[in-house]
């Protein structure tokens, strides 16, 4: 594999934390250089889980993702990340993103002016991590002398979780990295990175210096049907995000996203999964035999990802098979 590619593994908070920690240990042993923990509202909390990773599976970069400025205040977020950095020095990063509109609405939050909200939040985090008193009078962030009494060991990388073109351009302008949603086709990955490059160029930044991460559902099995089936529910869950509509439309694959969203809103994940055809799984995820998955992984790297983040799916035996593939891919 290209030596500049760093391979990560993601967790969605659906399984018991102890199970996630056990898988994280195997992933690190297989060569994963980062562990990403999703902040899905209602599921296991990302920063707490990263603390458990730090202590039980030490070494890789830890990334709570995506922390939403609509729900989190920058001061506690800065404190939590700086504390995590003290638990795992030099291994802490964060992904900032608006969050899922459906779940945010359930917590009484509406996504308004998302680019501005993410920009202000990111700016505030960086200022707070300097240890200086911070004064910001923004539309979303107001700080009047808030100050961290301790600071991270080194600047903490901030990834911007982005789907839409404006947010992708913002990632190119201000992010240390971008992290793309799960459920994108390779064509969407190319388009997304082009938008990041456009943003970077606008501010005279070098796109080559931008970390380009993306979540990829990764289901490996000697039984192709089993591999495809393992992805369906997860793909349906991410497709509750209306911002993935353009990606689905561009693929030409018939997925009734409105029905998917309605099913997830009533927490009927099985009904949502039934709306995801095989061709959608093949286009928007990596699923199949070990050989096929290795090839598809390279397709996504060729599309522009240099930090692919794999979400391992399926039975424990198939996750073990996926770890074997990771071991092979992670070798320099």
């Amino acid at each position, binding site marked *: 594999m290209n030596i500049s590619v760093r391979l990560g593994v993601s967790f969605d908070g659906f399984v018991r934390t102890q199970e996630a920690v056990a898988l994280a240990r195997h992933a690190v042993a297989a060569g994963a250089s980062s562990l990403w923990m999703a902040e899905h*509202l209602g599921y296991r909390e990302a920063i707490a889980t990263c603390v458990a990773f730090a202590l039980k599976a030490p070494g890789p970069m830890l990334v709570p993702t995506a922390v939403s400025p609509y*729900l989190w205040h920058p001061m506690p977020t800065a404190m939590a990340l700086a504390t995590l950095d*003290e638990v795992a020095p030099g291994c802490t990063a964060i992904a900032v993103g608006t969050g899922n509109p459906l779940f945010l*609405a359930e917590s009484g939050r509406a996504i308004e002016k998302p680019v501005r909200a993410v920009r202000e939040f990111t700016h505030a985090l960086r200022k707070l991590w300097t240890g200086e008193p911070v004064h910001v009078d923004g539309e979303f962030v107001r700080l009047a002398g808030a100050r961290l009494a301790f600071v991270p060991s080194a600047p903490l990388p901030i990834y911007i979780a982005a789907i839409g073109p404006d947010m992708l351009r913002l990632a190119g302008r201000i992010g240390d990295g971008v992290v793309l949603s799960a459920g994108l086709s390779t064509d969407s990955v190319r388009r997304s990175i082009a938008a990041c490059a456009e943003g970077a160029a606008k501010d005279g930044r070098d796109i080559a210096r931008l970390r380009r991460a993306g979540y990829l559902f990764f289901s490996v099995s000697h039984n192709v049907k089993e591999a495809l089936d393992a992805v369906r529910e997860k793909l349906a869950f991410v497709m509750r995000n209306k911002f993935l509509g353009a990606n689905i439309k561009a693929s030409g694959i018939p997925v009734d996203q409105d029905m998917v969203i309605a099913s997830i809103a009533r927490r009927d994940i099985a009904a949502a999964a039934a709306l995801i055809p095989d061709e959608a799984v093949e286009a928007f995820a990596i699923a199949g035999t070990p050989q096929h998955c290795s090839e598809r992984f390279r397709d996504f790297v060729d599309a522009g990802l240099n930090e692919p983040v794999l979400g391992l799916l399926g039975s424990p035996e198939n996750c073990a098979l996926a770890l074997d593939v990771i071991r092979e891919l992670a070798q320099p």
Partner: protein
Amino acid sequence: MPVGVFFDGFSSTAEMLEVCRAAELAGASSLWFAQHMGYREAMVWATAAASVTQRVMLVPTAISPYLWPPLPVAMAISTLGELAQGRVILTASIGNILNLSESGIDPVKPIGIMRDYVMDLRALWRGEPVVHEGELHKLRGAKMAFAQGRQFPIYVASTGPQMLKLAGEIADGVLLSAGLTLLSTKDCLARAQSGLAAKARDPTALRKCSLINCHVSRDAAAAKAATLRKLAFLFRSRGHAENIKSSGLDIDHPAIIACHARHDFDAAVRLLPIEAANAFAVAGTPEECRARLNEYIASGLDEPVIEVAGNNEERRLALEVVRGLARP
């Protein structure tokens, strides 16, 4: 006697973990992690402590509804509960007014908002979709997808009379702030008790705990000087006005708050007389500290929560005090 140990977030994570291990071995019943704004984050520390302890309760304290919305808190506590096999208590409080204002927060309607917060957290932990248009937070179907039905005790921390009464009415425990005189401690407990009585709750339904600054040393003068620094930090809160008055000491409280506002901490320390160390805290030789702690316990506490502070020798002495209280 159950005895807790608290951490203020001022020391390094490595030191905190070392004290956690030692405190559990010494017989401590609980470890409390203060959420002081700008210092180590309480949930992160409690989660880290879960990995080095087996028996003690872990208590992130005190989480403010103004800065931490209910759903992420419910998620974090349940995640910690999963890691610590249920050994978790959550303490909520309004938070320090000065620090909240630095974070752009004006803590209006605190009583109603705390009542909503406790109600929302309990509803989320029941696992049902929660619909509640609260004063501060609106829940419109938010739902926990794991650990449904697993409740965690919620304590309310305060020194204000109305909030203490609310704690007595609805909480599983009350936590008194550090830095109280004995007289204030008794007054606060009486106010919490009045809330308990007003709702005709079982008298054992409310655990009564208090943070107590404690510095044990062979050098009593050094212990007292170190304690003044902790007190100067605590007295940045306007809520300590009555407490300071109850000591009868000549302390310019508004001047201390003003020092904090301009981040001149040393000046705040200089405004405290040495007598403050014994009036508001426990500081001195092991014998002096044991005697003073017993006075606090006799005021009606179910669980004193003390610091293990200072250099290695002083921390060892403090752990001896914990051992003595836990296994008399």
